[in-house]
Every structure is written in C-alpha cells, then in structure tokens.
C-alpha cells in the first residue's frame, strides 16, 4: 500500500479512465485508487463520478457503504483485528483491549505517529487457530498480547 508518487488528481483520473468502460467497474476502481493513495480523497469524488458516468451521491454512497473504503488519510499500515465468534472463543476481547491500549487508539483510529490504523474485521478465515489479526496483507494466528507486541516491533 505504498502511496504512489504524483498528484492525487492525476492518479485518480488515470485509474478512472482505466475502469470507465468496465461494467460494474466502480468497486475495482475505488480499490485501486485506495491502494495507490491510501484513501479516497473527498475532493476526488467528483472526478470519479464524472469519469464513471455516475452522480456524486452514488459514488459517495458506495464509499460509505463498504467498510474497506476510507475518505480520510490512513496510517502507513492497517492492522485488522478479528472480532468475530471464533476469535471471541479464544480470548479476542481481551486481545482487543490490549491492542487498543498498546496503540493508544480505538477502532477506526490512526496512531499519533501515523504508522498504524486499527480496524475491526469480522473473520479472516483463520478460524481454526484464533485469535487472528491481519497486518497489511499478512494474517497471524494464535495472537496473544505478547505475540502482538513482538509482531508490532517487526513491522
């Protein structure tokens, strides 16, 4: 998720151009913008809308419907902590408290140094070896407080 170089507007325009003719292309378009810029800047919604032949309300509606999409800048790395049942069965509620206090943020928040954003996730498909977290694109199994602290140091 390293932000690409160049003006956000230029980047957004070129991504939009790529998907303009794709049927149902808005989701892949938004995913790619977010992968490149780390978030979907609010002032780019108009460019996306006109390029994709949609209204601004439609684009905004889609961005706000899906948990993955963000309008605000994010930390360099996103940490997803699983809150769902299989992880609860192995103490994820306790892990959640630890992670929040260790990072000093609530869900949706970004650490003061801008390194990490913390998000809840409902299942990572690692349910036989919980609790699970995802750091960037890597999933980690059987995470307790000590393992979390170690993983954080290695990022």
């Amino acid at each position, binding site marked *: 998720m390293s932000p690409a170089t160049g003006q956000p507007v230029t980047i957004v325009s070129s991504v939009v151009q790529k998907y303009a003719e794709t049927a149902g292309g808005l*989701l892949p378009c938004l995913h790619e913008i977010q992968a490149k810029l780390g978030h979907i800047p609010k002032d780019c919604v108009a460019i996306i809308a006109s390029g994709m032949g949609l209204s601004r309300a439609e684009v905004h509606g889609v961005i706000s419907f*899906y948990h993955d999409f963000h309008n605000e800048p994010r930390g360099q790395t996103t940490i997803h902590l699983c809150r769902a049942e299989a992880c609860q*069965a192995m*103490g994820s509620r306790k892990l959640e408290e630890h992670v929040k206090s260790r990072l000093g943020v609530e869900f949706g928040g970004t650490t003061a140094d801008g390194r990490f954003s913390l998000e809840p996730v409902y*299942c990572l498909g*690692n349910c*036989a070896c919980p609790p699970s977290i995802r750091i960037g694109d*890597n999933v980690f199994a059987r995470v307790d407080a000590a393992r979390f602290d170690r993983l954080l140091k290695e990022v």
Partner: protein
Amino acid sequence: MVKVFIPSDTTACALGADEVAAEIALHSEQRGLQVEIVRNGSRGAFWLEPLVEIDSHLGRIAFGPVGVNDVFDLFESGFPEPCEHPTYMGKVADIGWLKYQSRLTFARAGMTDPLSLDDYRQHDGYSGLMRALTMSPADIVEEITASGLRGRGGAAFPTGIKWRTVLDTAAEQKYVAANADEGDSGTFADRLLMEADPYQLIEGMTICAMAVGATEGFIYLRSEYPRALHALKQAISNAADANLLGNDIGGSGRHFDIQVRVGAGAYICGEETSMLESLEGKRGLVRFKPPLPAIEGLFGQPTVVNNVLTLAGVSTVLAKGADYYRDYGTGRSRGTLTVQLAGNVRYGGLVELPFGVSLRDLVEEFGGGTATGRPVHAIQVGGPLGAYLPESQWDTPMDYEAFAAAGAMLGHGGVVVFDDSVDMAQQAQFAMEFCALESCGKCTPCRIGSVRGVELIDKIRQNDNRQGNLDLLDELCETMESGSLCAMGGLTPMPVRSALKHFNQAFEAGQGNEKHD
C-alpha cells in the same frame, strides 16, 4: 532431488510456513542437499500446520507442526529423509484425523501444487469438464439434479433446479457468479479450496457455463482473502493459456471467461442479490425476490449464483458421475459435508465427511475437545446467524433437515466451539451487534431492531427490569423474523433465542462476566 512440501495456505503462513520454507531452503543450500521446495496447499489439518511433507520411498511423510526453530534440528536428525524427530508424524496416509475423512471436494488439497495444471490433471482434474463437453446442456443439468447436490452457501437449494431455470430462460447474455464472500465466522472451506485447488472452482464454473449457456463468469471474492486472490488470478491465467478458458475451450468452440472481483468488507454482500448489486458497482442493498437471480440476475440477465463449494462439487459430480456422489450422505442431504472445526478446539481444521455424523463425534473425536482443556460448553453451528447448541443437542446428526428440526442450521458448515468461560448473554448481544453493523439498511426490523436488541440485552445483563425486557426481546425477535427481507435480519434471532432457551442461567442476575476473562 527430494521434494519438500510446505503449504502456502493462509493459516499455515499465519503460523509461520513462509519462514519455515525460507529456513529449509537455507539449510538445504548450506548442506549442499538437492531439495525442491513445493509450496502446496494445506490439507486443512490446521492443528498440524506448518505441516512439512517429503516425498520418500515410503510415500509422503509428514512432520508437524514445524517451527522455524525446529529446522536445524530436523536436518541434524536426517531430514529430508524419514527420520526420528519430535515432529515426525510418519506417513500422511496414516494420520487418523485425515484418514477417517471422506475427501471428495478436498481430495487434492495439500497433495498438489495449487497452481500446477499438470498436477491438477494428473489427479483427475478437468476430467469432469472433458466429459461435460461431450454432453448436451440438458444432460449436464440432469446429471447435477440426479446427484442430489444442494447449495453449500447456506440455503441448501437444489443446484440442478437453479441451473434448469437459467438454462430455460432465453437471453443473449447469461452469467455464472461464484459466491466467494465466505463471511461467516468459523468458516474457511472456500478459502482453503481456492488456495489449495483453485482449478476445481474454475472447472466447476466452466461446467456450469456449458450447462446453462453462460459466456461470462465472476468470482466475488472477499477482500480479507489476499492469498486466495493471488491463487485465483494465476490459475485463471494458466487455464486461459491452456485453452481451458477463453474462446475455444478444450477445442469445443465454446466460449467462457472468468474475472475475479474483490468485495470491500461487507458481510451482507454474501447474500446473493446484495452480491449482484456489488458486482454491478453499487451499494450492497438486498433486492426483492422475485425476480430470482436465475431469471433476472447480474445486469438483469439470467445468472447462476453458487457457492464456491457447490461449484467445486460440480466438478466431482461430472468426473465421477451422479451416482457416485449420491451414494454419500443421508436422506435429502447427499454427498459430503465440509465441516470447519473452529474457535476453541484442540484439533481444528477442515473435516469432510458424508452428511449424518453427529456434532458430538465431530467435536470430540476429530476436534479433541477444547484447546484450553476446559469443558466444551456451547457450539455455534452455521455462522453468526446460526444457533448455539447445548450438550443436549450434540447428538443431532449433521444434515440439513435434522438441524432445521432442532431449531438450528448447518449453513456453510462452520462449527465454533466455546468452553465454559463463555458468557452466553454477551454472545447473544454480539449477534444483535453484528446485525446492526452489517445490516444493509433496507428494512426497519433489521436496521433498527438490531440496535434495540443490543440495548435490551444490555439492560437484561444489568438486571434492569429483567422480565419486562426479556418479554420485549422476545417480541423484537418475532418482528425481526417475520418482517425482514432477508436472512440477515430474519435469522439473527436464531443465535439469540438459542442462547436464551438453552443457556438461560447466563441471563440471570449476577451471571454476567464473572467467569469471563
């Protein structure tokens, strides 16, 4: 040259398989050993991951679980030959946990390099499609109907009937949409299949396309599965290069393409009409039915929506014949059930068995009880909308009808085990909370009712007007059940009611969190 297999599966890697692979490569090189490392799929015995296998004169030999710190010692003991070591498991074929399963859909998982088409074909892959290409569309549909295959996504709808509808609906354009949204906590079978044996899904979709006359396919994959995305993209590209997708499939002159579309973190997009909206680039609002997606689906065209495992099952049915498949199972639940043992369980992972095994046998015999060593207290089956079953119900045979009769559901086969430290009132509250978070917002009983449900259970847990609020909760559940458009709002009461009914002590004054850590 010795072949060493180290899974590339998400769970295996979450337990360190990548590091183990790197360490084994390093040691082999340092020792000048001729070793070929194959990143296979996982066999789904996650309690043994990272499970390292070697090809030896005795057949496939397993070591597990292997940590990075075991690797030096392993080589000192004689690895990569069969050798004495605490992680030595003997022949893979003799591991009871695997041996006593009936692997149809997951027969290849862990055996092969997931991306190798040669491996796939050597293990019976694409024989189903080759057969389908010699059959008429109606005959393929008939074969699926005769197999008794029912949808594995949760609703257990007969697959043959769905396909028949799409086949019989005339249209210029038809679609096949594979539902790979796998949102239920406690499930990972779709992920495992896509990472370990992606061609099986691709083959199943292609057979479906030949049967109903579709030319375009989509796989709607949740964004939480980056490794599956990588495997699918590569497999699709390899299949296209081998003329197994594209303009002239297997020289038949038939055309079919597949694209992967990634979801964006919305549980409701697993519901089929919400998924179609999302594929169209919209908010995932659930559609009214009718029209059925089979008649007016993606972009208004006839569309088969099937779960990943359903489509994978199609490959088996065509390869081995409807009768072969039908011979597994019981009553109206035919074939195999893929149970995912999850949560607080000692030997967690994927267990594929004919329908009809009891929950108790699964959790005790395969699962080995809890990971924490405490007594099993509650088992949630079928995901976040499924019931919590108390011990008195663990002898229920795992088939669709028996579970429905017990006020529960099999769903996608997720089995989440809880020990006696669980606070069942808190679990009931979470069910409502999850519904509030993930509701698409289209209907009031679901959108508002779930928020009210959280508040009510909170009050009950705090002993605030207990009886009055319990009565209100009961009414609220009824409203959600009868007034919701889809099963999100309609089934959220199932875990809540099962907790109230079978674990009512948890809702009594002063029970709360005391046991919970």
